């Protein structure tokens, strides 16, 4: 199954990259390790969004809600339910997927902007719930000092854990994107009407796609908790969702790894420009505007197009 | 008056017109005949600047205006009646005409004159254009084009999909326009209407002009008609 998707060269590069990442904590200062872990989390989240946005054509405007929901689910399962960490880590993304399914049931009947705005309304209700339910979710103060298993408590432990989970998740998502389901999903993106005409139940696929994307957003949420040890309602606020869309766009939203790159750029940019100036959003805004003007297919999309003019589509090799 | 020379037009990547050339002199009515998808509408759109040709040129009244914005061409004196009518559905008939008013000079076309020309429109002045019948919409698009006071009228399949009676009526009106001195380029599938109206004709097929000659010649040339128009 792996062999069918990757060439030997790709596998080699991936192995080297992975080895480099595994060795990184030995050579890099602690802060960069933390930052890389943050990139994994954010990148995984953006990639999960892109599954429905770039590969499914759904205007998923409030993806962050599934991220935050996963983070809260893990936290509450650990603190309130006192569940063993292994189960909590497995169950939390499922909670996100269930929420994705639930919201999806209401939203998939709508298309494009209507879909997106309805999702924002519903997501805002979920956000309001987390924001208001002091006794359960800690309200806007959030929950801090979450009791994490010892393995992931140190920043190196968190790094390895998020690296592992992120790699596996990316691989699984890549498989899904290239599976029959993914193929149909791309068909729906390009032409939902035609898809119906060849016998595809578009809504059911969109629903499933949303649940899967929500699942991985939930995984990213649990990783966030692992890396930061905190949850707070901002994780489900709609502005974060828009930032995620920007990451997809920045990296290239028709390329599988585009959002990963976009997330890396934004996280690194805001951390390091933030050191020198309070006005890093200004820098980001200008960069984005230039990008939309000159590189509408995103950084990675552009690079790929330059590399191979005939085939810009990532979903196939 | 109008000179189209060797234009090549693309829709995205598909090449539609392969070096189409044609000429229309002042006061003439010239028809462009061809089957569905032969490239008639694309030729019209290329002239009008809606789908600018990639190669070749369009010259109007002695000025090369290839790829110029449509609104500038209208100001130069081109009027355009699209094949799918495209009235402004949200506006009333009167409003449709009002916003199109252009280039008015003494004795030119204004709302009154259009209503006098198409009395049927006056009665439905306040009706929303989206609720008109096909024939009424066609009158409206022609009226709308007339409001721009064109010297050359591009008429793209005015009779398409209309009932025979309406076709007949329209034919008379177009004839009247021609008599009033308007230059007309008419794209048609309906051979009989086209030949009755025009002085000369071009036959287009698959983006190439296959034949051109006077109306009589076309009428006589059975072979061309069979081959390209399957009539």
């Amino acid at each position, binding site marked *: 199954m792996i062999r069918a998707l990757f060439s030997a060269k790709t596998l080699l590069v991936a192995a080297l990259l992975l080895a480099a990442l595994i060795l990184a904590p030995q050579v890099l200062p602690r802060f960069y390790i933390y930052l890389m872990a943050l990139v994994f989390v954010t990148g995984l989240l953006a990639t999960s969004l892109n599954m429905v946005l770039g590969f499914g054509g759904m205007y998923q405007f409030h993806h962050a809600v599934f991220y935050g929901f996963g983070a809260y689910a893990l936290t509450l399962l650990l603190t309130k339910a006192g569940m063993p960490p292994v189960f909590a880590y497995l169950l939390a993304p499922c909670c996100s997927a269930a929420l994705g399914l639930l919201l999806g049931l209401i939203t998939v009947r709508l298309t494009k902007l209507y879909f997106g705005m309805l999702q924002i309304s519903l997501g805002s209700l979920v956000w309001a719930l987390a924001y208001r339910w002091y006794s359960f979710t800690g309200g806007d*103060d959030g929950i801090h000092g979450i009791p994490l298993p010892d393995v992931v408590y140190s920043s190196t432990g968190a790094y390895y854990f998020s690296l592992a989970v992120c790699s596996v998740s990316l691989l699984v998502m890549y498989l899904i994107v290239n599976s029959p389901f993914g193929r149909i999903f791309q068909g729906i993106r390009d032409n939902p009407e035609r898809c119906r005409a060849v016998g595809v139940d578009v809504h059911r696929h969109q629903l499933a796609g949303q649940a899967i994307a929500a699942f991985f957003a939930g995984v990213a949420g649990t990783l966030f908790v692992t890396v930061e040890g905190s949850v707070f309602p901002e994780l489900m606020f709609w502005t974060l969702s828009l930032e995620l869309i920007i990451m997809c766009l920045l990296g290239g939203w028709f390329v599988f790894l585009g959002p990963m*790159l976009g997330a890396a750029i934004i996280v690194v940019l805001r951390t390091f420009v933030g050191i020198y100036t309070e006005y890093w959003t200004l820098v980001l805004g200008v960069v984005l505007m230039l990008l939309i003007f000159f590189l509408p297919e995103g950084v990675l999309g552009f690079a790929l197009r330059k590399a191979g003019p005939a085939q810009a589509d990532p979903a196939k090799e | 008056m109008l000179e189209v020379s060797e234009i090549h037009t693309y829709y995205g990547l598909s090449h539609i017109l392969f070096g189409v050339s044609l000429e229309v002199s002042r006061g003439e009515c010239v028809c462009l005949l061809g089957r569905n998808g032969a490239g008639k509408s694309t030729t019209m759109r290329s002239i009008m600047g809606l789908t600018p040709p990639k190669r070749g040129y369009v010259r109007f009244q002695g000025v090369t205006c290839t790829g110029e914005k449509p609104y500038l061409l209208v100001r130069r004196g081109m009027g355009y009646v699209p094949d799918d009518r495209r009235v402004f559905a949200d506006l009333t008939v009167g409003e449709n005409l009002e916003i199109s008013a252009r280039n008015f000079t003494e004795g030119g076309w204004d709302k009154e004159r259009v209503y006098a020309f198409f009395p049927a429109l006056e009665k439905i002045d306040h009706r929303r254009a989206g609720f008109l019948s096909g024939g009424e919409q066609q009158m409206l698009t022609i009226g709308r084009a007339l409001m721009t006071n064109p010297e050359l009228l591009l008429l793209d399949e005015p009779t398409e999909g209309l009932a025979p009676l309406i076709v007949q009526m329209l034919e008379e009106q177009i004839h009247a326009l021609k008599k009033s001195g308007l230059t007309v380029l008419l794209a048609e599938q309906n051979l009989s209407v086209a030949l009755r109206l025009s002085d000369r004709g071009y036959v287009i097929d698959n983006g190439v002009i296959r034949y051109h000659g006077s109306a009589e010649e076309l009428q006589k040339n059975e072979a061309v008609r069979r081959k390209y128009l399957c009539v």
Partner: protein
Amino acid sequence: MNRFSLISAFLAWVLALALCAAPAMAAKTIKVGIVDCYSGPPSTYTNDVRDAFKLEIDKVNAAGGVLGRKIEFVTRDSKFKVDLGLSAAKELVMREEVDILMGTINSALALAISDLARKERIPFLATFAKSAKITGEAGHRYVFSITENTALAGKAGAVGLAKMPFVKYWIAGDDYEYGHAIADGVWENLRTLRPDVELLGQSWWKVGEPDFTPYITAMLSANPDAVIVATGGRDCVPFLKAAKATGFNERVPFYMHTATELSTLKPLGLDAPEGVLGTSNYFFYYPNSKANRQFVKEFQDAYGRYPAVGAVYGLLAAKYITGAYQKAGKVHTEKFIDAMEGMTVDSPVGPVTMRAYDHQAMLPMFMGKTKKAEGYDFLIATDIVTLEPEEVAPSIEEIRKARMK
């Protein structure tokens, strides 16, 4: 998928890392890292903290620093976002390797940083976050609070209100932790002090509510004796505007924690409603002591404006830091903390002690009423009653109970 994207992703990564791997350590200074929100409404408060802190630090450095070392500080803008602030704090700890963390007006962020401080064993001085949890149930060895908190403010409000004849109350406020904590604090304490009070109802609005008129009219139609308004900083101004426009303050007396604060009253100019009850830690015109007058003068000379309440927090933070290092005798975190505990420093509001048990600075509270006054183009607080910290702070017993939970 293709090696190309992998390679380019990796290259971008390396490039990014190379770009920012600049060495950051300078020798022999004490480094303080401040994370706070310097964007948007909260900066009205946070700028004062930073500026007063800088004023005092500059003085200390000019005199040769502490233990022969200069104190330097770096700031990071959290934009009122917890995730940004938290990663900025980690950056300060891990990359800048600061000795002390300080800051933040955002309670959620303060709690998150507090957790980080405990993990990293770095002292964290919370300068503006009002959550009682910081030194209450979530308190630990490495966190200090140099500001009143919701428990303090609530009790102060209750003590003040208990002396008034009101019975039927309505509670309204910003619908977030701070609002509810203040309201609960006032109400719980008030009920203990005056068992006959009665709650008619509550209304809660979202933070940043654009129009308070519907809330005020809804409250008026319930006809309470008094209203307890628990709004955070940013909503005070529009609420007072709406109160003035509807004549709310003339119909129903109301108490609002920060109503008398300079940051609230200054933007309103002379159009603020009069007679509103409020509490605050500090006024530049009260207490009218020599220390305060001198501080106000210095601050005005440096920045051309009156110091607001945040300035006292900034000043206190600077004084605590220098004082504790001095007392510890060497730059050592654990010794620093030992020195901090129970330390008393002088301030414009008199001597302030850092309570050893919960690391809460024992600040006095001033309750007053808004009023126009000659010489100012904005309203000031009058009829000021000082509530001593011993009177309003939660007892050590209460803190212990909270931490046991």
